[in-house]
């Protein structure tokens, strides 16, 4: 039984194939604005390469947002289709939580633009700050106030230097009870951005 791991919540497209919480194979690369063209192909390729058939897939674990408005919907739409067709469980994980660094307290960030960032703070299984959207100034103040926390994810919008990050390692362990979706077809991405008053 294999788990299929998918993420397209930000610039990257990541596909992982795991068995028993061990990564069998994975791909991850910058596919900004091309994820919808590439995702299904990449799933097909990784399965064929590892001689895995559809019936071998036992669950799908996917990041649910926040992130790129189009990006978060791509992996989720594909994941919903697969779990519906195969009648297998779907697990949704915060796309910020998948940026956490091991069991260290981690400030997980993504550029929300208009001088704002998506932020979630995690320590292992514990949520220190639930995913929200803050101004970059507020985020920098939070980082300053928590010097021992790891800072992970997209941070160039804060004037910090982006470091590589790996979402698949965290997705690998996303198939826990709290992430299990009861009605996969009703699942919705998490955007966090509300309508501006106009």
């Amino acid at each position, binding site marked *: 039984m294999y788990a299929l791991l998918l993420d397209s919540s930000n610039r990257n497209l990541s596909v992982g194939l795991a068995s028993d919480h061990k990564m069998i194979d994975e791909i991850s690369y910058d596919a900004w*604005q091309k994820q919808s063209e590439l995702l299904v192909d990449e799933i097909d390729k990784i399965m064929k390469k590892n001689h895995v058939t559809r019936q071998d897939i036992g669950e799908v674990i996917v990041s649910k947002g926040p992130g*790129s408005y189009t990006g978060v919907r791509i992996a989720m739409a594909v994941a919903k289709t697969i779990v519906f067709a195969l009648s297998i469980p779907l697990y949704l994980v915060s796309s910020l939580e998948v940026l956490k660094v091991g069991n260290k307290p981690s400030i997980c960030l993504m550029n929300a*633009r208009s001088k704002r960032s998506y932020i979630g703070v995690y320590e292992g299984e514990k949520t220190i700050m639930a995913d929200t959207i803050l101004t970059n100034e507020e985020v920098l103040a939070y980082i300053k106030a928590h010097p021992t926390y790891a800072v992970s994810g997209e941070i160039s919008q804060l004037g910090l230097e982006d470091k590589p990050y790996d979402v698949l390692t965290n997705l690998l362990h996303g198939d826990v009870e709290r992430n299990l979706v009861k009605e996969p077809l009703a699942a919705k991405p998490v955007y966090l951005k509300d309508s*501006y008053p*106009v």
Partner: protein
Amino acid sequence: MKYTFVSKSKEETRKLGAFLAPKFVAGDVVLLKGDLGAGKTTLTGGVAEALKVHDDVISPTFNIMKCYFKGTLPLYHIDAYRLEHQNIELGLDEYIEGDGVCFIEWPQYIQPLLPDETLSITLKNIGDDNREITLESDTPRFVKMIEAVKGAF
């Protein structure tokens, strides 16, 4: 800085676009203002041609946004006309702060998404094929562009 001149033909308006095109870099935002038929799409067409987009530029009023990826710099053309009093969180910010140059018609309807530094171009139909074109910006990069336009038009 502000500069106003009169374009005497569609062709001259296109030429302005072509003149500006090579000066743009990723992340630049141009606000296009003017009534229907003032020449906003014509101007953007001139930019697209000079960027070697090899695609006809049509008004994105229906689509809200059209992307042209094939040129020397990605060109994003947004028409916010239909977004008045609507939810504007459609991911447009990923293009406005993106890896190309972004032309926005009816920018007042997506004000919260606009960056501080913009080049504003206002087109006004003053009869026949004549259009009064005003370029305006306080951003040093764009001020330089306006100065170049002043020398050429």
